[in-house]
């Protein structure tokens, strides 16, 4: 966190000054570790074992917050007889189909019965206990290389700092998700936090440290292929009607208002053209026919299925896994538009990519027409950032963008205008979508910049009379309201740009509700109903946050209550109730079908209802917990060098594991930092971090060069020998050496270096299609890498030694 979010880390430092215990779990000793109370080094990819052992520690030691667990989680749900846990089938849940590598989750659905004594062997609580029983401190030591003493210290601190009087927060940077089991890492933390009563309470929660450039905003109003704004799902091919589409969302809880959200969205987009009679134009939207994630798209590009590509502030030639495939894909396009602050590698791949140097690509044979369009920086445009705590903060334009640089808003808007003009008189039904778009933001200035506040007002939503809505509760399912994103509704309440508020901390309450605006409803802690007991009283004075005021018959407190304001704690829903009314007054998790925190997830996850440890796609060891070695449902692309199954356990050819990460001094793929002298000089060269023991083993010298080789690529880096990277001893006494690689460098900018992400395979989590970029296997040798075609030869020689007989380019036939 100190590495990648130094500004946010000031609050961790502040907490430490006030007595908080800070524990840092990370393969490396980082700037965060330096300030932590203690650091726990761990093998990358062992997270579920560590977290699972903490769950086991809580359950077996009866440290759970019993009242909280019983009332607020689905611990009491009874599971059907045909549900089989991984305990029963050696690492697989019931419903697995090995051919399609998918689960059918019908056997995971609770029966509807509940056992509030939590003693029924088929209740979630008991299943959970059995599931995690094998996750012991010994297993942690064997799998993660964490000593039992270190584990004990971690577990004791966690338990000591949780309960009525204290809370524990889990904070992660997104590297935690970049695994084939990434979603389940967060799931395990969620189980832990629910058991300890750390959700919905001040000082609790699981805090994702998302990217700086409004990455939270880019999922709220998504750039993701499978989502519409406000986490409404993208329609699928089989959704032939509005009802079929809506059936995929719950009827109870706040998703019960799904039609209000969707209809308002469609009205915002299509205005009068969207009517109840035409399903609000839903049928005219593109629909998903399968995996259209970024890695699938790259492979489709290589296969010639994708003709054009827009890159907005993204640099896949450096920043995405498997850089070679990324660049080969770009070289197969007809056209490519790159919008960025500076010429990045994804715009210059045709002349300076490693594949040109090796001869795999020839500049004069690349047909891609590349359009580089300079982008305005954030100080050159107005708009909002949504930060990692869901808070929208408005920023104003400080100066005009230089030269041809334009804001993203300008580009999208004017591109839309031109396209709409081009199809204005088209009789094609497919063009109706474009013709019907509401595309009328006011423009100003010499550059005809669209008004960003007008966009925010549209996002906020308007009522039938055109007045701005005050929140999503006002949305209607009948098409009388329009709202660009239901969760953002209220950000322009009262005609005031709420996101622009900057009232100082000293002039308002400690929750600071008048700084910016947090979705939903300016609520600062989600599910804060859980900060009070089922009767509506704070669990403790120290942790009082919101509570039920019986006299006034309403919820009150420091934050906006996350429950209907006048819903009494003793409210019991009548049979057949739908929407929010279907949840009881003691149900805090209002976006869930049953209002309960999900210790067990019956639906929504593709890799199982409970977290289970599987080894990474490439690993040095076999799964110590189950016979099932790897995630049975991870997304692999067999043709895309997906050779990790064969590589796993090859401790001779690729005897080390490596992990990638960022440094404070640079920003992601480097397009915004390698080009700036002030930042570039602070970390001028790519380096690898190795322990003194590994340096001795391989003859690496501090400040010298090393070549790192995987089955995908070979790169060179300077060597930094540091005791901050420690060898870890695993189960059989084997020592695992981890190589650390920051990934900021490429061929452009003031400081250049090889592309670390070239080393990585395509191996994805099945739920969110995130790549496993935090762990793979490699070799490391002293000295610089070969130049030209010899580089391909080096990788090929490793592949041959590893027994990979495949179509690696530059293979024997090519020479």
């Amino acid at each position: 966190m100190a590495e990648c979010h130094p500004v946010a880390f000031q609050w961790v430092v502040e907490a430490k000054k006030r007595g908080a215990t800070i524990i840092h779990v990370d393969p490396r000793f980082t700037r965060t570790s330096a300030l932590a109370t203690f650091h726990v080094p761990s093998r990358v990819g062992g997270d579920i074992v560590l977290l699972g052992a903490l769950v086991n520690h809580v359950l077996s030691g009866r440290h759970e917050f019993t009242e909280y667990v019983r009332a607020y989680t689905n611990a009491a749900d009874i599971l059907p007889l045909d549900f089989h846990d991984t305990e029963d089938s050696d690492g697989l849940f019931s419903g697995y189909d090995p051919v399609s590598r998918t689960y059918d989750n019908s056997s995971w659905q609770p029966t509807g019965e509940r056992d509030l004594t939590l003693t029924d062997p088929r209740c979630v609580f008991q299943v959970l206990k059995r599931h995690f029983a094998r996750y012991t401190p010994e297993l942690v030591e064997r799998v993660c290389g964490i000593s039992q003493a270190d584990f004990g210290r971690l577990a004791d601190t966690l338990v000591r700092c949780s309960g009525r009087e204290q809370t524990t927060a889990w904070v992660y940077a997104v590297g935690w998700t970049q695994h084939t089991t990434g979603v389940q890492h967060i799931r395990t933390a969620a189980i832990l936090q629910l058991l300890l009563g750390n959700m919905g309470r001040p000082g609790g929660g699981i805090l994702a440290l998302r990217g700086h450039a409004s990455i939270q905003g880019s999922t709220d109003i998504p750039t993701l292929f499978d989502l519409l704004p406000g986490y409404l799902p993208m329609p699928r091919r089989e959704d032939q009607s509005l009802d079929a589409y809506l059936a995929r969302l719950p009827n109870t809880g706040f998703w019960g208002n799904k039609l209000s959200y969707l209809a308002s969205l469609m009205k915002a987009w299509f205005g009068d053209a969207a009517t109840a009679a035409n399903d609000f134009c839903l049928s005219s939207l593109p629909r998903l026919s399968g995996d259209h994630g970024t890695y699938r798209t790259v492979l489709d590009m290589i296969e010639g299925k994708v003709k054009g590509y827009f890159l907005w502030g993204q640099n896949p030639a450096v920043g995405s896994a498997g850089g070679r495939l990324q660049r080969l894909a770009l070289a197969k396009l007809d056209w490519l538009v790159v919008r960025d602050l500076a010429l990045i590698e994804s715009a210059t791949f045709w002349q300076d990519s490693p594949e040109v140097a090796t001869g795999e690509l020839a500049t004069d044979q690349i047909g891609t027409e590349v359009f580089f369009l300079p982008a305005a920086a954030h100080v050159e445009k107005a708009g909002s950032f949504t930060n990692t705590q869901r808070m929208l903060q408005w920023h104003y334009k400080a100066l005009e963008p230089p030269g041809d640089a334009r804001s993203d808003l300008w580009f999208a808007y004017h591109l839309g205008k031109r396209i709409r003009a081009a199809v204005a008189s088209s009789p094609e039904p497919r063009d109706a979508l474009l013709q019907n778009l509401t595309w009328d933001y006011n423009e100003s200035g010499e550059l005809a910049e669209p008004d960003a506040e007008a966009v925010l007002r549209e996002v906020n939503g308007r009522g039938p009379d055109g007045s701005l809505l005050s929140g999503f509760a006002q949305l209607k399912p009948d098409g009388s309201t329009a709202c660009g994103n239901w969760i953002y509704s209220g950000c322009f309440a009262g005609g005031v740009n709420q996101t622009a508020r900057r009232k100082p901390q000293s002039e308002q309450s400690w929750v600071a509700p008048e700084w910016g605006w947090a979705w939903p409803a300016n609520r600062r802690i989600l599910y804060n109903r859980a900060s009070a007991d089922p009767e509506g009283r704070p669990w403790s004075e120290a942790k009082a946050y919101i509570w039920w005021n019986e006299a006034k018959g309403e919820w009150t407190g420091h934050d906006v209550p996350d429950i209907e304001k006048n819903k009494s704690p003793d409210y019991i829903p009548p049979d057949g109730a739908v929407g929010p009314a279907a949840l009881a007054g003691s149900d805090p998790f209002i976006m869930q079908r049953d209002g309960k925190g999900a210790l067990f997830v019956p639906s929504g996850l593709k890799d199982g209802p409970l977290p289970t440890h599987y080894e990474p796609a490439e690993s040095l060891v076999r799964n110590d917990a189950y016979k099932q070695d790897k995630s049975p449902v991870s997304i692999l692309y067999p043709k895309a060098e997906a050779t990790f199954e064969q590589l796993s356990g090859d401790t001779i050819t690729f005897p080390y594991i490596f992990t990638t990460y960022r440094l404070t001094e640079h920003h992601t793929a480097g397009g915004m930092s390698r080009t700036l002298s002030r930042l570039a000089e602070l970390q001028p060269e790519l380096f690898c971090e190795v322990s003194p023991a590994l340096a001795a083993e391989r003859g690496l010298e501090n400040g010298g060069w090393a070549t790192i080789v995987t089955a995908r690529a070979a790169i060179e880096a300077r060597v930094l020998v540091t005791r901050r990277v420690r060898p870890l001893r695993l189960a059989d006494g084997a020592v695992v050496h981890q190589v650390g690689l920051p990934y900021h460098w490429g061929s452009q900018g003031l400081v250049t270096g090889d592309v670390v992400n070239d080393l990585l395979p395509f191996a994805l989590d099945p739920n969110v299609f995130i790549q496993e970029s935090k762990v793979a296997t490699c070799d490391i040798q002293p000295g610089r890498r070969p130049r030209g075609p010899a580089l391909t030869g080096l990788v090929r020689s490793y592949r041959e030694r590893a027994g990979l007989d495949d179509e690696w380019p530059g293979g024997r036939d090519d020479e």
Partner: protein
Amino acid sequence: MTSNRLYGPLDDVSGDAGYVAGHPQRVGFFTDTSVCIGCKACEVACKEWNGLPDPEADALVLTGMSYDNTAELGANSWRHVAFIEQAVPAASAPALSALSRDAEGELIISASVGDTDDGGSATRWLMASDVCKHCTHAACLDVCPTGALVRTEFGTVIVQPDVCNGCAYCVSACPFGVIDRREGDGRAWKCTMCYDRLRGGLEPACAKACPTDSIQFGPLSELRETAQARLAELHAAGVPEARLYGDDPDDGVGGTGAFFLLLDEPAVYGLPPDPVVTTRDLPAMWRWAGIAAGVLAAGVAVAFTGRAGRAGRP
């Protein structure tokens, strides 16, 4: 000239330098390295605000000194974050044995990891942002022959670039190795404590940018109290190695305007343990120079007397 013009405590440095009563109170930096996260925002903010020159392309190389690629304070780097990696006794139970394999795959003990014999050791990573100390008795200012270096009304020490002729005397006089002459420019440069910002009522850029308040700016007297309180807090929290550096008006430079809370010996951070302003000994130096001049004259006299009468003798 009173003796403490050259040495010893001095309550009012600006007044001593000739500013009339009513001048601003002395300001300074308290850099609490115990909360420094090594983000280098201070370095960047400083260079950006002060418009310091970009590095030459051939200077863009990894130093191999942990995460420090700035290496030192100088004419073009007025803040410098030091990174020190240390082995310290493990606070918890024995850490993992450090083993590695030899060529035959046998497990061998690698002493270089340092985790084996001593029952385990933990890692400590010290980070500290260094800066010009703005000494009470500033050698650079004392020795400057042109008057380019001056004491400001805020009690800080700055170089006037329009006066400096690049004699580089200050470079050799600074006991902290801070000030340096800029290549190609020929003049001496160092931290001004953002004199322009101070004049405008703003805090220096580095302190403004520091996310964890490791760099604190304010009236020196208040900072010294803050620092004492923080020191007591750390000592109470079981950090006995915490110490203040530069806060003592009785030290060899009369106390510094930029002082530090350190977690190890100053030399570990590249700081002199007990610096003394060189001009403390200036009166004695002149005395010896006087003696030498006398000896010189006497020597000549001796050479020409006694036998002078014989000079004309063949």
